[in-house]
């Protein structure tokens, strides 16, 4: 835990210990319906998840998940009050009732599940490899076959080397301070591939059509879920239903449009007939 996280966690625990403002009898669902808008916690500095676009509007895939919930509540995806929060504020803002729901690329971990309640996942994140479309290597197999001839650019991180070597055991790893430098290394040919989150990689490809390609291999899986304050099964069930039907049911067009917009991939319709969940 970073000192910052510890501080946040400490304050959140203080809040819990003192018996944080308890939700009124009844569910958050009724409270939100009575209020007339959803208070959604999300960030503002991580495209394509949650960021301020050219028109100065908060947008992204996380934001779209919140809009799905608002649409389900009020028939209007715009009935949202956004609380722009840092990643460290996700859990404290939930337990102190600053927000109804947080959708902010939150990785599901057992440790966090003891503090908040996770909804069903709406995305599976992983690491992928970005290549130049006209580069020397076409895909993952070609990179792997090239062994130590391949240099992989990666964002600086204690586990960066280990992470890349899990997929390409012999590759040379160059670490960079920031995302722009990492992409520059790829552009200039100092690196043959850049290893980064699949979502970031997809978004970068959406923004630069035709220039890059995905090596087609993903590893280091992690689930992204929305989260709520623990202890409200009715509200949790409601949000779960909304997300579930967005991925498999009536709101699938909304979800798949959003998915295509941010990740550049058209999803196939869920199989009709026997529910896909039990396959």
């Amino acid at each position, binding site marked *: 835990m970073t000192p910052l996280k510890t*501080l*946040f966690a400490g*304050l*959140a625990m*203080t*809040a819990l210990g*003192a*018996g*944080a*403002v308890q939700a009124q009898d009844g569910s958050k669902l009724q409270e939100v319906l009575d209020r007339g808008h959803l208070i959604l916690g999300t960030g*503002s*500095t*991580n*495209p394509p998840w949650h*960021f*301020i*676009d*050219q028109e*100065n509007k908060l947008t992204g895939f996380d934001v779209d998940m919140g809009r799905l919930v608002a649409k389900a509540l009020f028939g209007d995806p715009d009935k949202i009050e956004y*609380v*722009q*929060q*840092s990643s*460290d*504020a996700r859990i*404290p803002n939930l337990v*102190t*009732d*600053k927000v109804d729901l947080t959708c902010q690329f939150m990785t599901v971990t057992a440790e966090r599940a003891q503090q908040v309640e996770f909804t069903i996942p709406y995305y599976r994140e992983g690491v992928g490899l970005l290549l130049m479309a006209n580069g020397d290597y076409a895909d993952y197999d070609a990179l792997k076959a090239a062994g130590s001839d391949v240099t992989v650019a990666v964002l600086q991180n204690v586990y960066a080397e280990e992470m890349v070597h899990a997929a390409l055991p012999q590759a040379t790893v160059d670490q960079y301070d*920031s*995302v*722009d430098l990492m*992409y520059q290394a790829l552009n200039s040919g100092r690196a043959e591939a850049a290893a980064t989150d699949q979502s970031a990689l997809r978004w970068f490809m959406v923004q630069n059509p035709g220039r890059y390609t995905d090596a087609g291999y993903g590893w280091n899986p992690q689930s992204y879920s929305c989260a709520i304050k623990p202890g409200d099964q009715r509200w949790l069930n409601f949000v779960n239903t909304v997300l579930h039907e967005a991925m498999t049911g009536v709101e699938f067009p909304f979800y798949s449009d959003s998915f295509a917009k941010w990740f550049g991939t058209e999803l196939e319709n869920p199989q009709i007939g026997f529910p896909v969940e039990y396959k």
Partner: protein
Amino acid sequence: MDLSLFLDNLWNARMSLLAGFGNTLLISLVAVILGSGLGVLVGLALSYGNLATRFVLRVYTDFLRGTPVFVLILACFYVLSVVGVDLSAFQAGVLALTLFCSSHVGEIIRGALAAIPKGQTEAAKSIGLTFGQTFASVLLPQALRQILPTWVNTATEIVKASTLLSIIGVVELLLATQQVISRTYLSLEFYFFAGFVYWLLNFLIEQAGRAVERRVSIPQ
């Protein structure tokens, strides 16, 4: 560094950066005004209050001055909501900076009043001035000259401390800048720009302070 690319992006982001700058100004202005008002009361009570008042305010100023502003901001935002005072991020942030400012101004005023020789108060008494008259005509004019430079310094500190509100989600200049960087990846350029704006703002505050100092200084 591709200057035209940066300028293009700067122009595109001008509205959000301006809004962020407006917030920075508003936060700083409100915090300095309210904090100074409160600080004057604290300073006077520290100088002339009875023992109990002085003790309570001594704890207040020492606690606030000895706590990082960052912790103060988190406390105003999270701890207050536990006791039922539900402030928005903006209000909580302004409250934290106001308290921080008041403790500093209180201490500045106490120090300035203490620096005036006791003989002056005694002399004022001996010619029949009331405490109010003594304060207004003898102590305050001298204390103000002492206070001004450090008070201007506190104001610039508040401007810089306002960047910390980004952590609880107040979109001031720093967070607005980070939002632009996350979209454009031009981190160095935009951080440099934000740094320059903060420097310029504080430079202007200091210059304004110096101008006032020159006006009120006693001609040699």
